[in-house]
């Protein structure tokens, strides 16, 4: 099923045009996302953010991109040349390829694949190879640590991600992203599957390597991890890939869980409304991801792994199991909402229990001054303190 | 400190010293009783001004008593410094005295505040230990003198781990070797800088002009002139 709005006639030409449009979209959106992230972080931190280049610093990232392109492409002498130079592509290409099958509106995607969901997951899962390549080939211990962390983290979180998406596909009855959206034209899936939605967000955060899961690139530990030796255009490719995957996961989330371009306007919404809807939903995801990045600290690698394997994966399977029960026995959807909601509560409870959240009381030893002139002043001073 | 005080001693007559001793003894009658080692009383009277000071000899007597019990034959020389009680210990006894100072329950000097070296020029080096007890809230300064050409002293890192880095620093700066130190390699100075001791008095400060200033090389600093 190939549906393109611009029907030139030649299938190759159509595809080429579509891909070019995608490249443009990706670049522009990445630039905008970087600007947005800097603005959001600035506001969270009560700063102004970029203000100089263009109105409100809108062109700052463009200027940065120009600078990066102009920079010297450094390669450590001891690095493994081919692996080092290919690694950015190994990260960049899968990310880009995943964008191909994402339906932006009802009629607009490069390729409407029947296995769209499967394809997106499979292709984005390949990115870790690039991180590993970069980490290993840089001949830098920080990069190696970061690459190893990236590999461990990305592979681990691929599992709960896939399992939740499987749960969605079970209910929707299709792996085609458009059909999943169509399925949600009345009520989006996050209502029925809050647990799956939660797991998806967490896993997406981990896949994106953003706080609190930015362990592979942790600034304060491994100083950028796999990217540490990269500069100029290669480094910016990693960056571009990272923001493109932010876009992909946000799109995927809004398509799979928030009802894409359908909900709540229904199937009859016009093209612009569809675009608006998907834009708003994606922006919500993006804003959330950015907000989280500046609100939370980083987990440690062992905590990250055990959280994945001990909490998220069992719960993801629980969601699949619940969906299976509903499908097999034909129980009402309300049951799904209840049980999945209970599962979400369980997840929260597990987090609550797993962490030593007991408030620590400090022992206060009074140091009392004996000064006579001090007496009058001290009473209200300590009271207000 | 001994030099400083000895100079004053030379100026003051013996009669003055006697006079000074009496008020100190009147303040603390029990001190004179406890003062067993002959060394301790020698300089205890040297408070020469009326400022309030920690009771002369309080901690010194405790230390003297404890040392006399545990380590007979070890000589201590105690006197009142400007802010602290100073006890001088022979170099070879330092580790033993320190162990007593830390472990004796009356003293419980469990906190090594500071360990510093002082270059006393012809009198060799002094190693100065500022000790404090967090429980008893008293403190004492223990000093030992090492000869210039034989700058060795036992490490107290086995008593207080805090001494570890302090001793390494003193070794860096004065070249005092701390025997049995777990890891006596340069700490603040470059790893290979083991023959040059910056804080020794015979190591004068370089004139700043010599290494920076007028003789700056014309090229090499990326200045606008070179471009």
């Amino acid at each position: 099923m190939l549906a393109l709005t611009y029907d030139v006639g030649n299938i190759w030409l159509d595809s080429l045009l579509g891909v070019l449009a995608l490249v443009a979209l990706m670049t522009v959106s990445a630039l905008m996302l970087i600007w947005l992230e800097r603005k959001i972080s600035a506001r969270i931190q009560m700063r102004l953010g970029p203000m100089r280049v263009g109105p409100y610093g809108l062109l700052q990232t463009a200027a940065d991109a120009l600078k990066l392109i102009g920079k010297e492409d450094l390669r450590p002498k001891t690095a493994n040349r081919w692996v080092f130079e290919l690694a950015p592509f190994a990260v960049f290409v899968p990310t880009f390829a995943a964008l191909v099958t994402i339906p932006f509106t009802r009629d607009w995607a490069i390729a409407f694949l029947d296995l769209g969901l499967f394809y997106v997951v499979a292709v984005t899962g390949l990115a870790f190879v690039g991180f590993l390549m970069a980490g290993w080939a840089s001949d830098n211990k920080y990069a190696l640590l970061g690459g190893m962390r990236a590999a461990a983290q990305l592979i681990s979180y691929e599992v709960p991600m896939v399992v939740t998406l499987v749960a969605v596909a079970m209910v929707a009855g299709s792996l085609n992203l458009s059909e999943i959206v169509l399925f949600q034209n009345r009520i989006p899936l996050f209502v029925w599957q809050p647990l799956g939605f939660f797991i998806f967000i967490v896993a997406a955060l981990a896949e994106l390597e953003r706080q609190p899961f930015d362990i592979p690139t942790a600034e304060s530990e491994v100083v950028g991890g796999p990217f540490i030796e990269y500069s100029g255009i290669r480094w910016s490719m990693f960056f571009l890939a990272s923001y493109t995957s932010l876009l992909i996961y946000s799109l995927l989330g809004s398509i799979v869980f928030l009802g894409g371009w359908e909900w709540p306007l229904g199937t009859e919404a016009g093209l612009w409304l569809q675009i608006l809807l998907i834009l708003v939903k994606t922006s919500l995801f993006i804003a959330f991801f950015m907000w989280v990045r500046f609100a939370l600290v980083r987990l440690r690698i062992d905590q990250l792994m055990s959280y994945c394997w001990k909490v998220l994966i069992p719960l993801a399977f629980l969601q699949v199991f619940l969906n299976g029960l509903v499908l097999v026995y034909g129980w009402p959807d309300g049951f799904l909402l209840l049980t999945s909601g209970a599962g979400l509560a369980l997840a929260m409870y597990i987090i609550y229990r797993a962490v030593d959240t007991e408030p620590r009381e400090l022992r206060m030893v009074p140091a009392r001054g004996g000064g006579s002139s001090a007496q009058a002043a001290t009473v209200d001073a300590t009271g207000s303190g | 400190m001994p030099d400083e005080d000895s100079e004053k001693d030379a100026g003051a007559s013996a009669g003055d010293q006697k006079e000074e001793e009496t008020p100190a003894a009147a303040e603390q009658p029990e001190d004179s009783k406890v003062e067993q080692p002959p060394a301790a009383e020698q300089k205890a009277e040297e408070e020469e001004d009326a400022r309030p000071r920690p009771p002369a000899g309080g901690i010194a007597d405790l230390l003297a008593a404890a040392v006399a019990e545990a380590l007979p034959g070890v000589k201590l020389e105690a006197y009142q410094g400007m802010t602290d009680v100073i006890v001088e210990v022979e170099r070879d006894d330092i580790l033993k005295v320190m162990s007593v100072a830390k472990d004796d329950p009356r003293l419980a000097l469990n906190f090594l505040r500071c360990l510093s070296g002082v270059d006393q020029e012809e009198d060799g080096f002094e190693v100065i230990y500022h000790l404090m007890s967090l429980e008893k809230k008293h403190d004492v300064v223990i000093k030992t003198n090492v000869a210039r050409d034989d700058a060795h002293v036992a490490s107290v890192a086995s008593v207080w781990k805090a001494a570890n880095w302090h001793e390494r620093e003193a070794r860096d700066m004065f070249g005092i070797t701390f025997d049995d130190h777990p890891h006596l390699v340069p700490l603040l100075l470059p790893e290979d800088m083991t023959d040059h001791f910056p804080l020794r008095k015979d190591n004068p400060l370089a004139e700043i002009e010599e290494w920076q200033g007028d003789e700056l090389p014309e090229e090499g600093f990326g200045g606008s002139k070179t471009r």
Partner: protein
Amino acid sequence: MIGIFKSMYITFATMLRTPVTIEYPAKHRDVPQRDRAFPILLWDKEVDEPFCTGCHACERACPVECMTVTMKDNPLHADEKSTRRKIVDEFWIDYGRCMRCNICVEVCNFEAIAMNNTWAGHELSKFDRNDLVLDLQQLLSQHKQDKIDAWVAE
């Protein structure tokens, strides 16, 4: 999870507050009157000569030895225009070495030296560190041209 939500809340709440930063080189916040940038020399406008007599007090007191002063007989004194018998001949301050401790100002008997308290005293980036060695004319120029409202403690 409560703590995580609290973190999210406080970050969101701060997002709604007004930013506290300003665009620095475009906007300058006011520096207080006692602001200490680098030392400058003051100009006696009544007599039209520097206050400084070149007495070396600041030079000797300077912890980092960033000053060089020489003294000469005051020609104006011979003409009985000035009460200063001696006057500064040459004066260099190496701003690259100065640590802005204010001690020169305190030791000066003639209130001839003050710390620059304008932004011009802070924004001194140079390509060559030799450019940071200022001579007498440069040191005097700011006060001579009334660009500065010098503050001398005590």
